[in-house]
């Protein structure tokens, strides 16, 4: 695992990272993702250039920025979801708990069992509520007996604050639920396989403010057990819920004449929103751009 890295990390950010760490409550200070010089290509098109940042355990890390800035692309690298797109290519270092997940020996399926994902549009399976939650545990062979599976389903729905609303209709189709309930079902479904990390790709963008508030509450509750990385278009949301924020922007690449995603600034959320060091960040968070 160390083979990729020569001796001490030459990255100058490390000491600063440690200091930033101490100020975040809940955080264990352990590193979950270590991203360094990450480049993502779709065919010849470079979607993200040289992103470098660190995601810490039991924190909520937000990625914000205008459309086309590559934040979703970066998120989808964390569980190798980009592998589903045949022309996507990833370069650079992306370590998950010190393991380089783009190492050829790594099976993306094993990565995804540890890193759950919630998508922009609620995407429950056209199956019953019960079968939606039980899908992951069944696929991963987590429950041997029906009673164990029942327990996992109840526990997951409870954690996603959905149990009371659906406990009497577990056999009904999940598509009969409202949009907000469907999204909480998707969160419950992701939690059911007991992942280490939860990736959320604009999980509230299709929901009304009340449903959004419920999901945000939910995220605050579960962050003691999971590390959460969230992409959001909603800056207030990032400010409300996250501990750290990465600001991306789309920048014209002079060599190819194409727009390419760039990580401008990564810091504690308060700092990003009150005292950013980069002018572009300030312009974005104050609403002057984007």
């Amino acid at each position, binding site marked *: 695992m160390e083979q990729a890295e020569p001796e001490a990390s030459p990255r100058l950010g490390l000491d600063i990272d440690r200091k930033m760490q101490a100020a975040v409550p809940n955080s264990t200070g352990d590193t979950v993702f270590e991203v360094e010089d990450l480049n993502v290509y779709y065919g010849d098109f470079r979607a993200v250039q040289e992103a470098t940042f660190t995601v810490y355990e039991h924190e909520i890390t937000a990625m914000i920025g205008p459309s086309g800035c590559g934040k979703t692309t970066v998120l989808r690298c964390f*569980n190798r*979801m980009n592998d*589903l797109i*045949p022309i996507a290519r990833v370069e650079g270092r992306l370590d998950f708990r010190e393991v380089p997940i783009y190492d050829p020996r790594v099976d993306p*399926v*094993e990565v*995804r*069992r540890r890193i*759950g*994902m919630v*998508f922009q*549009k609620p*995407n*429950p*399976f*056209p*199956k019953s509520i019960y079968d939606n939650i039980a*899908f*992951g545990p069944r*696929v*991963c062979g987590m429950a041997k007996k029906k009673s164990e599976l029942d327990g996992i389903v109840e526990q997951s729905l409870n954690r996603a604050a959905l149990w009371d609303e659906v406990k009497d209709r577990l056999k009904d189709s999940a*598509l009969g639920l409202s949009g907000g309930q469907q999204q909480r079902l*998707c969160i419950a*479904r*992701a939690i059911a*396989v007991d992942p280490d990390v939860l990736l959320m790709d604009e999980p509230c963008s299709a929901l009304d403010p009340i449903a959004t508030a419920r999901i945000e509450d939910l995220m605050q509750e579960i962050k003691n057990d999971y590390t959460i990385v969230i992409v959001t278009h909603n800056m207030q949301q990032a400010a409300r819920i996250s501990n750290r924020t990465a600001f991306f922007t789309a920048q014209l690449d002079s060599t190819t004449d194409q727009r390419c995603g760039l990580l401008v600034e990564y810091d504690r959320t308060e700092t990003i929103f009150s005292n950013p060091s980069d002018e572009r960040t300030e312009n974005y968070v104050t609403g002057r751009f984007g």
Partner: protein
Amino acid sequence: MSDTRVNPAGGLTVQSLKANPRQARKERLIRDCLGGTALVSVLISGLIIWSLFSEAWTFMVEVDWGSVWDIGWFPRRGIYDIKTLIVASLIVTGIAMIVAGPLGLGAAIYLSEYARPGVRRTLKPILEILAGIPSVVLGFFALEWIAPNVVKTLFGGPAAGSLLAAGIGVGVLVVPLVASISEDAMKAVPMSLREASSGLGARKITTTIRVVLPAAVSGLMAAFIVAVSRALGETMVVFMAGGAAQTAVYTHDPLEGSLPLTAGMTSLARGTDSVVGEGLTFQSLFFVGLMLFVVTFALNVVADRFVHRVREQY
């Protein structure tokens, strides 16, 4: 033209919002023409069914029912054993689906879930061209290649025509149909469901079997129905390779030759002279046609019920 303009003094009036009479007439005309074409096709179908029923009715009234359950299909001798034809048809269709089902579905799964976009872009049109091979070509292929090389070598049957040879031939004929319709149905399943599944750590084959196939089941069933209807109605391959030339005695052994419904009609209908004039021979043709209609219709109804029960609507 002045009445179609907004009244400059008083603003908008009902008059100014009235439809242009010429436009309205044109709209009505178009609607009536399109309605007419729909009506004509319904009428034609109705006439077909009417002629089928009326002639078949004559047969059913006048025939000696003892001869409808006999040793074989010899209409010119007044022996109309209908079970010979129906059993032969069902055997051929069954064999065809055993061949085409797994092959077609496998090809569809590969094209939809596994093939890279370039491979898919090349293979799909080729598959659709295969669907256009004239059945007489396949009939010849079944008789000259499948019968000696597959039926004789593998199953120890005759090198000439047999129900097995015809069944395999029809199976090959409907593989592209099954593959093409199934692939369309699977491609129509939203990508977000596949992402949800692989996001939970499901392998590709698990995603395919537990998410894509259940969501696509109504389309897969449609593929199956179309294929069965096509196999039941297929004439040339079964007539050439089914052993119709040798025998029309009842059998349920696929290694023997027999006469499916369509081949029975064909062998009767060679030239009108040989059909008209001898007792009920002519009417028996319509009776066979009616049987074909009933079998296909019943299959559609059953399949439709099934789809309603297992469908996962996305």
